């Protein structure tokens, strides 16, 4: 990226400043609801920053997961916090000395880091060129998808395990998912019915397009997850479906497909996750399709927050 000039340079300066300002406002706000809303706006600005940095894949992931689903999780957690729990007054109860020391320590760290980052001189070039050179052999045309699913697919295998593990952790608290108390709102219900097919279509599109353009399993999965959240919000009785053994199978489909693919490639090619070049594109697509389903289901289940129980009155 060349040196900043003109209007875009000004835009970058405003955007960076805006990021810092929003983060500070979100963290310093005395009202928790306000803090979360500001944090969501912060996430959206982050998505804009990713677009400016030439990283549209991250921009999509950030908008869908970082701002959207994290925001939904935060708001739903806030709604479930008992009313009588004190909101805390943005750190004012922390002793003044502690705050001063913390401020000095973190600002010292940040200044040192800023100096290091500013003076960073690469000793050796990264493997960025190798990604482009080997792109042909990876089976997909989008470099980021190639790294995520092929060159560093093993990271993604473990990452799928992390996502499933978060759900296992939430369920290990032994809390049952709450009964839906509010009656379904007709407008929300209508919106859900209208958007559901569209969201599924968008997810399928993102999954498909990820092979050669920005998109992929994580973006598609988070759109599916958002569809799940919307249905839960609209009061659809998903909990019975989510408590079934089928649901568990869908939840593990992504990581299980990765493990199965790892074993298969090991048996056939002799190496973990080494795809035969001719079939690489197809195999990666199968992996991504399974991952998309799992990610969507897991994110929706995380939003539900507790262990889904079969409905008593169903």
């Amino acid at each position, binding site marked *: 990226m060349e040196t900043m000039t003109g209007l875009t340079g000004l835009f970058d300066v405003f955007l960076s400043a805006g990021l810092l300002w929003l983060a500070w406002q979100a963290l310093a706000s005395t009202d928790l609801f306000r803090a979360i809303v500001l944090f969501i706006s912060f996430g959206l600005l982050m998505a804009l920053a990713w677009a400016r940095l030439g990283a549209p894949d991250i921009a999509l992931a950030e908008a869908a997961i970082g701002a959207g689903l994290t925001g939904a999780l935060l708001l739903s957690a806030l709604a479930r916090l008992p009313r009588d729990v004190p909101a805390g007054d943005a750190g004012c109860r922390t002793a003044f000395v502690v705050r001063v020391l913390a401020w000095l320590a973190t600002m010292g760290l940040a200044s040192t880091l800023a100096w290091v980052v500013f003076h960073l001189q690469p000793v050796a070039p990264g493997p960025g060129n190798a990604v482009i050179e080997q792109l042909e052999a990876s089976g997909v045309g989008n470099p980021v998808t190639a790294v995520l699913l092929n060159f560093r697919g093993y990271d993604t295998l473990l990452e799928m395990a992390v996502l499933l593990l978060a759900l296992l952790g939430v369920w290990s608290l032994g809390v049952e998912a709450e009964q839906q108390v509010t009656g379904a*709102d007709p*407008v*929300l219900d*209508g*919106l859900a019915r*209208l*958007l559901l097919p*569209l969201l599924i279509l968008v997810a399928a599109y993102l999954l498909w397009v990820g092979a050669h353009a920005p998109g992929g399993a994580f973006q598609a999965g988070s759109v599916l997850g958002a569809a799940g959240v919307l249905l839960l919000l609209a009061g659809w009785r998903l909990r019975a479906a989510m408590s079934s053994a089928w649901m568990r199978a869908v939840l593990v489909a992504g990581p299980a497909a990765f493990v199965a693919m790892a074993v298969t490639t090991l048996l056939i090619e002799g190496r973990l996750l080494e795809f035969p070049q001719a079939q690489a594109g197809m195999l990666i697509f199968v992996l991504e399709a399974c991952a998309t389903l799992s990610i969507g289901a897991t994110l929706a289940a995380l939003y539900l927050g507790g262990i889904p129980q079969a409905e008593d009155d169903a």
Partner: protein
Amino acid sequence: MLTDVLTVVLSLAGCAFFLAGTLGLLRFPDVFTRLHALTKADNLGLGLVVAGLALQADSWAIVGKLLLIWLLVMLAGASVANLVSRRALDKGLPVWKR
């Protein structure tokens, strides 16, 4: 050239509506008037920006996508405005009277 000028004009007009909507959000006295300012202005503002951008599009597919974005935002805006106002009425939030 003419399309470029049109794009700038339409986008600027859109921005003006956004600005008006934001001002309304900040300055209007109660939930309902704020919603009024926000949804009306944003829908039209976004529509103008989308129209401006559509003039720059290379293909009809992109124009279609832009239109879809506009429609979806209007749909979401209208629904959410409805939800917010219904909740505000349920909670008995005061309606502003002159």
